[in-house]
């Protein structure tokens, strides 16, 4: 699934100048790291990798305690003129992506921003759409979608879609 996304990113941005991967902390960052590795295997070149933490840009930061812990935002490359591929694990309401876009724009003016997600579970609340999707699925607000990766201590990679009604 990720290999296909990596290929699509390369095809779509062939000859388009600088491309960089930016993961949304923390789940998106692990996926961005994997995409970087896959691109290295496919093309042999290294895409710059960054991370963005959106805690301070959320529209619900004060709704519900406790306050989120904040990780560093690291963008070790020039944003101006670069095409940014924003990477997240699950695309849902779109509010996280909105916050990440605001955060990115505070660091500079990228040439373009594209969005890559592993799972698109629908139910958008903002006009945001992904450019690269691993798997699109339908869900309801009461479902829970979890991406479990070995990076977070899981024994294997898996996506768990669980409906609250049939546990």
């Amino acid at each position, binding site marked *: 699934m990720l290999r296909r996304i990596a290929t699509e990113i390369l095809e779509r941005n062939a000859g388009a100048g600088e491309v960089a991967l930016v993961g949304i902390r923390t789940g998106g960052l692990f996926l961005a790291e994997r995409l970087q590795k896959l691109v290295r295997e496919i093309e042999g070149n290294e895409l710059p990798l960054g991370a963005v933490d959106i805690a*301070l840009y959320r529209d619900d930061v004060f709704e519900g305690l*406790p306050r989120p812990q904040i990780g560093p935002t690291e963008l070790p490359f020039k944003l101006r003129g670069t095409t940014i591929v924003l990477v997240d694990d699950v695309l849902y309401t779109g509010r996280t992506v909105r916050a990440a876009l605001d955060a990115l724009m505070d660091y500079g003016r990228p040439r373009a921003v594209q969005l890559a997600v592993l799972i698109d579970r629908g139910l958008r609340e903002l006009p945001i759409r992904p450019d690269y999707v691993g798997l699109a699925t339908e869900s309801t607000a009461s479902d829970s979608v979890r991406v479990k990766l070995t990076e977070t201590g899981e024994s294997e990679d898996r996506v768990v879609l669980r409906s609250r009604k049939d546990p």
Partner: protein
Amino acid sequence: MTEPARAFRHRHLLGIEPLDADDLVQILDLSESFLQISERQIKKVPTLRGRTVLNVFFESSTRTRVSFELAAKRMSADAVNISGSSSSRTKGETVLDTARNLQAMNPDVIVVRHNASGTPGLIARHVEAAVINAGDGTHEHPTQALLDCATIRKYKGPIKGLEVAIVGDIDHSRVARSDVLALCKLGANVRLCAPATMMPRGIELIGGDETRERVSVHTNLASALDGADVVMMLRIQNERLGGTSLFANTREYARYFGLSARTVARAKPDAIIMHPGPINRGVEMMPEVADGERSVILHQVTYGVAVRMAVLYLLGGPAPDED
């Protein structure tokens, strides 16, 4: 999605005394993230948009006031500054009336500096807003202690087990009191050093058992500095001495308690030199030390903004019981 931090259990920041080590570490960790915002081209995050921070300084200050003001602005809060001379205190209004009037304007955070110990606590009991103590009399100056700890941690790693010397007018210093409490809670050993006239009796008991075992009192600079990891010099505060003579003259003070290339050699070779500012050059610290490569005095100032952003982040939202 970021991991939720543990809830911050305090509504106000009146001092270091009510905080525990976990609270301190939480603020210090957050400060590291906020430090980075001040290094960007766009030095602002939208987190506290639409919230109001009042900086009420009944006692003059430039560094602390600007630091709080920048911290609020970089969090997108609206910051209003009120200073002692322009406030209605000069017209005879009591502190409590001033506080009630300020509260009537619906601020979210009130930052208070006052020359009487306990004033921020008094105000906190009468207002809805979160109150941050920016220095009260000879009581506490919690954000200074937090920025000191953040700076120490940056240069020396974990604070636990470090030997920290604090030298100067301990008796009149709220910075020293907050630093002693914070450093001891984080596991450092603190040596306090001052002429006997400037050393409050029983200072080692300020934090009960927590400080009794970790604080030692010195009247000899060399013994206080011997093998220290951190040397923190305090300003000789002429304005607080009130005409009484606690030492013969500044030259004598500088000779026995001033930090110079000669005296600093007693500390560890990699010890860092700190000062809460403003420095009386030639009195408590010689220029060659203040400007030397081990001086981290200006990094303290940088951390000051980050630490205050972290505190505003933790206290600037709705009160916990409304969430």
